[in-house]
């Protein structure tokens, strides 16, 4: 399999509308999570990372009329626009568009506003983004629960390896819609405090909304200092559709296969970007899988305390932050971590630090028993 090079990227989140704002907010320990009240959905208040629509519209006005696009579309279009601005010579006729989302414009199901019903469809979301910029190739839309964003990178690498594409814009996004809030609330999975991944007092997830985009290429860039995806694997738990495997089997196997493909051993991994949703069972499962993989001493964090769980965007955003960590040799702390609350020891990053990062591992897991492992290399 060929390598997939990670080039320019963009994140639109409550922490900011540029990559610089997002990375520096993480460095400064700022969180996008805020207390939310939605009495029509749940009597309990909860924390979530929600983007204010007014600054989003202001930013969007610079490119097009905000009234013609849904909130999610505006977020995703802005992210792509930023990358195209930095790459004016990119040939869109031969650049693939890969879209990753779990629910897309699902909020239109409850309140369509002025939008036609078809706008609910993920295929239509793909069309809107493709037509906005003039992508020629049919968008590839990945909707595979909470591994979608990272799976989009793996899909791109796989298709690129057999010569079916050279460049791609991988775009991820999801909203904190009433739909998902109601769903996770019905599951009693929402934390009433800001989520605390891997902590003893963790008690569920905080949702977040964000869009992210990344330009990737099978061709090695001429400039030095690049990050490449060199190993990837997804393995299903085959255990339960909404609960993770107790032994972390699928995630463990994903990690093993991704490392094998990358031809490196566990000890060479300098940093691990975990999924870390802060539900009791997810974090416990991850600790089992990491321990079985011999990763108990590898510095790791979860970014959910900064962004919340951004569902189909999360693994893409976390891969982007991992890329910047690797380039700068920075380790970012795992926000809201207190005392370790999983049964296997882990090396949770408690303070920002510096470390030579040559290889990093990104993992994600989701409903349907899906798991993903990505191995990144600095070269």
């Amino acid at each position, binding site marked *: 399999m060929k390598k997939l090079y990670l080039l320019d990227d963009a994140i639109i989140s409550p922490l900011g509308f540029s990559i610089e704002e997002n990375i520096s907010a993480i460095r400064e320990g700022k969180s996008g999570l805020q207390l939310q009240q939605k009495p029509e*959905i749940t009597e309990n208040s909860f924390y979530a990372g929600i983007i204010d629509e007014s600054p989003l519209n202001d930013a969007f006005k610079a490119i097009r009329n905000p009234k013609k696009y849904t909130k999610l579309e505006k977020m995703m279009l802005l992210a792509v626009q930023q990358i195209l601005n930095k790459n004016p010579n990119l040939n869109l006729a031969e650049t693939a568009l890969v879209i990753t989302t779990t629910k897309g414009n699902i909020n239109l*199901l409850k309140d369509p506003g002025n939008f036609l019903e078809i706008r609910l469809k993920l295929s239509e979301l793909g069309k809107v983004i493709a037509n906005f910029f003039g992508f020629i190739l*049919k968008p590839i839309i990945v*909707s595979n629960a909470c591994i979608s964003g990272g799976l989009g990178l793996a899909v791109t690498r796989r298709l690129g390896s057999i010569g*079916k594409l050279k460049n791609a814009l991988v775009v991820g996004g999801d909203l904190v819609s009433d*739909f998902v809030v109601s*769903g996770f609330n019905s599951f009693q999975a929402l934390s009433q405090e800001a989520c605390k991944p891997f902590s003893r007092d963790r008690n569920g997830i905080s949702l977040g909304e964000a869009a992210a985009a990344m330009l990737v290429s099978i061709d090695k860039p001429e400039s030095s200092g690049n990050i490449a995806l060199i190993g990837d694997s997804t393995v*299903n738990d*085959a255990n339960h559709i909404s609960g993770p495997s107790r032994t972390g089997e699928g995630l463990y196997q994903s990690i093993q296969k991704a490392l094998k493909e990358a031809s490196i051993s566990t000890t060479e991994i300098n940093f691990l970007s975990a999924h870390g949703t802060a539900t009791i069972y997810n974090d416990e499962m991850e600790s089992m899988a990491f321990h079985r993989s011999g990763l108990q001493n590898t510095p790791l964090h979860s970014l959910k305390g900064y962004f919340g769980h951004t569902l189909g965007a999360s693994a893409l955003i976390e891969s982007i932050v991992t890329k910047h960590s690797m380039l700068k040799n920075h380790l970012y702390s795992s926000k809201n971590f207190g005392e370790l609350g999983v049964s296997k020891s882990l090396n949770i990053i408690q303070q920002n630090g510096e470390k030579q990062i040559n290889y990093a591992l990104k993992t994600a897991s989701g*409903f349907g028993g899906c798991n993903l492992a990505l191995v990144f290399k600095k070269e």
Partner: protein
Amino acid sequence: MQQDFYIKDWVKIKDGKISNSKSEIFNSSEKNLDFFLKSVYDFLELKYPKFHKMDGLSKLGILGTEILFRKNSISTDTALILSNNASSLETDRQFQESTKTFASPALFVYTLPNIVLGEVSIKFKLQSENAFFIAESFNAELLKNYTESLLTSGKSSEVLCGWLNLQNGEYDVFLCLISPEINISFSEESLKNLYFAEND
């Protein structure tokens, strides 16, 4: 060296009819989706109680894979690559309706298209590559290319790929088992020919 792959077998479920690479195996005039699904379950003598709690999309996926996998021995690394147009919208609407009274966790679990991949993985003990794609219409090119990438890279020894759509009670299922074992030549054209045959 370029390795060749083949469509070892396929199954199609549409308009009350079920057929595979050999022949038509089931035909029903039942218009109601739930009754149709139950009649196929009974016809196959499935005896899988978990089936009854599933949503329509997962039930269709389980029935389709059951028919394919009964006839063909499969390995635990058989990848599942499915796609459709409506995602899980049929169940999304039911869940949205439930939020008017008490949001149903049992429905919410099925508001992701890839849940069917989890259900199939559990039923057939497949710990393998999974991906769910959304497309405007049957995406033979992507299914062919992605399947080929998994097989040539050795990530999977066989791939179950296909189309699994459910919208407004109308179902359109076409699943193929792709392997190095010689049968129907595996190409974008052959996928399209099989899918569109009697499908127009």
